[in-house]
């Protein structure tokens, strides 16, 4: 289960049809639950563990987990984007709860909460 969505933190980006996490997944794996308006993972087995969805979530509602076959519970890795957008601090927690932090330079670009899709919404293929 490489990415889990914390439903208590996800606000669906305030009714956005096409929120950043859905846009940033290169595998088309995140989708909106039409009933709750929150994000769902289509199929964890298709996830590449690349983390753009985790980094882009304004609520820090998406958490990266290694598949259990690859690593033990409850190690965690949480990226925090600085308000200045030019640094990212990765919080690394090992299986015993030990915390390490890595702050790295970057250049995070601002991102809209919604974006129009090309074409017309003609066919409803929602599941």
């Amino acid at each position: 289960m490489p990415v889990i969505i914390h439903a208590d933190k996800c606000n669906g980006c305030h009714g956005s049809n096409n929120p950043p996490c859905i846009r940033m997944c290169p595998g088309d794996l995140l989708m909106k639950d039409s009933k709750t308006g929150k994000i769902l993972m289509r199929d964890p087995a298709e996830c590449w563990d690349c983390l753009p969805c985790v980094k882009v979530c304004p609520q820090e509602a998406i958490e990266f987990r290694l598949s259990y076959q690859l690593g033990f519970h409850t190690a965690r890795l949480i990226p925090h984007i600085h308000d200045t957008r030019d640094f990212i601090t990765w919080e690394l927690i090992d299986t015993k709860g030990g915390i390490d932090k890595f702050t790295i330079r970057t250049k995070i670009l601002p991102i809209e909460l919604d974006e129009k899709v090309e074409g017309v919404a003609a066919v409803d293929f929602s599941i």
Partner: protein
Amino acid sequence: MEQNIIETDILIIGGGTAGCLAAVEVRERFPNLRVTIMEKAHIDRSGCLAGGMNAINAYLNPGETPESFVKYVRFDSCGLIREDLVLSMSELFEYCVKKVEKWGLPILCDEKGNYIPRGRWNIKINGESLKPIIAKAAKNAGTKVLNWVVASNYLVVDGRVAGAVGFSVRNGNMFVVKAKATIIATGGAAGVYKPNNAHDAQHKTWYCPYNTGAGYAMGIRAGAEMTSFEMRYIGLRVKDTIAPTGTIALGVGAPQINSKGEKFMATKYAHIGGDGAPTPYRSHGPLQEIKEGRGPVYLDTRHITSQQARDLKSAFLDMYPSMVLYWAANEIDPSKEPVEVQTTEPYIVGGHTQSGYWVDVNRKTTLDGLYAAGDVAGGAPYKFVSGCWAEGVIAAKQAGEYAQKNDFAEIQASLVHEEQDRAFAPLLSFTNKKDGIKAYDMEVRLQKIMEEYAGGAATYYEVNEERLLVARRRLATLPDQFKHIIAEDLHELMKAHEVIDRVYVAQTLVEHMLYRKETRWPGYCTRTDYTERNDEKWLNFVNSRRDPDTGDIEMLTRPYVQIVPGDRYKPR
């Protein structure tokens, strides 16, 4: 079915590393030309760069020249490369790197402002956001971007590529993009073989699992000449995470050791450079150790300081964050114990190895109006990120000139309808029949055939004529099964085409492996019936062309041309 018809001067298929640079270059050189990118995901984070990059691995550090680069790449590829292509891309490394730095990519510099090398051809970057940075430049240049449009086939009119057709995974619209010139930049192919990890980690691959050979397959179906598929890429990677090892081997100088602690590369492969041997040997060497009972194999990092271990983790966070979590989740400290390594599933790529479209020095393919750049273009290995950028720039220039001189081709409605029927068939099959084959089923079938008969990891990547003939026969049945594929939704429709495309790639690959009767790249493609390299007969490129009418694959060779003088098996 909603149909969107778009006219554009230049169509770029694939908005990744090469595609974004190509878009900017067209708009800068030819401001009058309209450019459209067709991208199956969203260009902000699509393709190989989604997770980021921590180094530019093809760069001419002070003292190096395009000629010295060619010598090294030729050595690394066991004496056979398209020297014209490698020369022309290396001449543009500086141009591309400076350009992307100007767009905002943080490149690590020393106190004098010089880039910090990491090995002979590498410089360090903080490239976590590399992809959004180049995507923004493409958008700012005035490119029209069709996100979530999966390209399914070219529009071919009298042998000329006149655009492409695709479908949206968001709304099921069909997109017919008519173009004066087309640049294909869809990357290579993962998932042709059984992946290293299974179940919920099946996509824990090194190469982007969403690069599924669409550009190769479209070219194969249209009769484009392809080269060097038999030079599969099988990388040495960190065990389980399949993370790149260059960050470790080059970053802190870690030699390979076997379970006895022996530095086998340094001793057994000293004559070809030891731990600096050509890349295929750096996979072949450890495979032999494991085969002969001296595994596991490691990169020996026990000499590094705890600060170096932290720097290593920081470098991985810029590119492959799961590596760092893996160490924490398994209580591994790379400064105290060596890092176990393994080899990957075989990938078909033109950026590490040289599988792809046969192109001229202008990146023109054998199809009129079609140019290729990046992993999908053949003949020029060792491209990595900056070489893909360079090829995007070269293709943009040539495609732009072609578009200035040629008008749109007349496209018959029947051509579009035919492709519409083919593209959407799995959805209709589901509606009508419900029963059939899911994309996943065919993927597993394909991977099983390739793994067992076409040199998968379980057979140490070894092949022989008899096994390959079994693979050929089994694969030949799959195209007849395409009509049974069903897709319940648009995501599954995309997956259906991903596996269909990989079947075309696999069939071509098997023909290439059968045809080259030598072992030029041990580790990448070891033939147990022709174990030696044979420069007398095989110092040439193995190419293929599928007849679009009959489906027959014709094999041919193209000569190697040496441009840069010197011993082809020496790195300098």
